[in-house]
């Protein structure tokens, strides 16, 4: 059977015209190839500007790659092929407060992608919305609420519900836990793990918290200056990092608990 996700020679170069006859190019992501099986999680770590978010955006279809291709279950995802990608790969952003439109009710927020991407009838859509809300641990009453009536933890769940509503196979999340409170964060981590166990979802996480990365991911990419400089099994890399960047990242968190070095 074909691999869930195959990525080949994916890269991104940004070009900026600084003068009419002169262009400045930035390589945001150097060519990278990898595979992601179902039920598994890829975590991407690295410093600011190392290309983590660029890779996430290319996978989620929020940006067009300069080279390379993405295959889903053996079928090439074309840059124009929004429907197929939208349904199977969904993105979640760091701050749901700004990514959820405050003037639209939760019911409408969740119905929108169904209207755009499926042939479901109005009744079927309502059923799907209810099921999805239950999946993220919210009562169906929430369809009448507006985003600003919810706590930040509930908004995170709505953002996740919006990603899940099309029953995707892969969720790409850019620092989903960064701004969360401790108890919200652990609830969300549990929810992600549970959805993976129940639905076989795969995740691509951009993160800067190695404690969380260690806990939730199978594969790890460490990025620096647009390159994936170290990659492999998460536990192996974290136990025995080879690259200086990885060691640095790990060092900064390993001091945890040892205090005042």
């Amino acid at each position, binding site marked *: 059977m074909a691999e869930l996700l195959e990525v080949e020679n994916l890269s991104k170069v940004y070009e900026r015209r600084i003068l009419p006859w002169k262009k400045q190019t930035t390589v945001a992501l150097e060519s990278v190839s990898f595979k992601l099986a179902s039920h598994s999680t890829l975590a991407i770590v690295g410093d600011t500007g190392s290309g983590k978010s660029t890779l996430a955006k290319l996978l989620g279809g929020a940006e067009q790659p300069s080279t390379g291709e993405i295959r889903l279950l053996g079928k090439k995802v074309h840059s124009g092929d929004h429907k197929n990608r939208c349904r199977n790969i969904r993105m979640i952003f760091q701050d749901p407060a700004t990514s959820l439109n405050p003037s639209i009710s939760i019911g409408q927020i969740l119905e929108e992608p169904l209207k755009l991407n499926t042939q479901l009838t109005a009744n079927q859509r309502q059923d799907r919305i209810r099921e999805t809300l239950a999946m993220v641990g919210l009562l169906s009453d929430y369809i009448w609420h507006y985003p600003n009536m919810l706590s*930040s933890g509930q908004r995170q769940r709505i953002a996740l519900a919006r990603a899940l509503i099309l029953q995707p196979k892969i969720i790409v999340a850019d620092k989903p836990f960064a701004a969360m*409170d*401790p*108890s919200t964060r652990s609830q969300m981590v549990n929810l992600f793990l549970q959805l993976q166990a129940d639905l076989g979802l795969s995740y691509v996480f951009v993160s*800067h918290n190695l404690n969380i990365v260690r*806990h939730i991911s199978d594969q790890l990419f460490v990025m620096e200056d647009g390159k994936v400089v170290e990659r492999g099994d998460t536990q192996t890399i974290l136990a025995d990092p080879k690259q200086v960047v990885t060691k640095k990242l790990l060092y900064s968190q390993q001091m945890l*608990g040892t205090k005042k070095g």
Partner: protein
Amino acid sequence: MLLDVRNLTVTLKTESLQVDAIDRMSLSLRAGSIHGLVGETGSGKSLFARALTGTLSDKWHVRADRMFWQGEDLLRLSDERRNQIISRDIAMIFQEPSQCLDPTRTVGEQVSEAIPNKDLSGGFFSRGSRRKERVIELLKRVGVKRYEQCFSSYPHELSEGLCQKVMIAIAVARRPKLLIADEPTDAMESATKIQILRLLQKLNQSKDMTVLLITHDLEAVSQYADEMTILYSGQSVESGSVKELLKNPFHPYTDILFKSIPKLGKLEAKTRLNTLPGSVPPLQHLPTGCRLGPRCPNAQKECVVTPKSVKTKGHIFSCHYPINQSK
């Protein structure tokens, strides 16, 4: 003790609502320590800082059994005297430092303004150059490598990390006894975050400046703070040395907070994290008694009465049914 606050209550009074956003909270700061003030969003951390520095508006009422600053009760002083002490001894930095700086003026101008005149020896005419020297010295001290360039930059030209360093330079210019850092590294990348926390640690050690580190980032507190106070929904949960609390928490909330960090909980990958059900109650619907009650695994009938704070074995905690009490 540098600061000793006992049973601080901060009440929000509006036409439709009267509620104790902070309910009999206590906190003691040992001079020279880094003290973490930890709690989830809305637990009252910033409110505490504003109550202490007297920067709350009229709709807030502040009461306390005492609020001793170096042995002097701030609540019994005239506003004028109190403001004098606070502006002399206490400095604050916040999250989103770039928003706190004036976008229309250079870093050099803004840091220079924070330097007290008495620091500048020499006659009136040599002050200008003395001032610049002192600004550069401050920028160096907070770890700005390209200080000359930084001096003549505008805030928008600097990264968030650099802006925070500048804010710290401004804060320490007056040599405060206490620096209150309210979520100073919120939303920063880990490398930058660590630079800032290390800087605070360095200033704490070399300048004997006490730091109150306000955050919801438990990882940062367990790594950088000596002591910590945990707040839940405006009530004190537990305080004591970080080491001791990590090893032997008495309050159920402390226990669950630490267990929610995979590494500290020593969990196998992909297993469930220990966590509380539900979410923090909104200010309009606070439970009576112990506010953790509806979410607490140990709650019993008695918990509808607010637990008194108890001091044993170096912990101060507020709970009717504490854990780890054997021995």
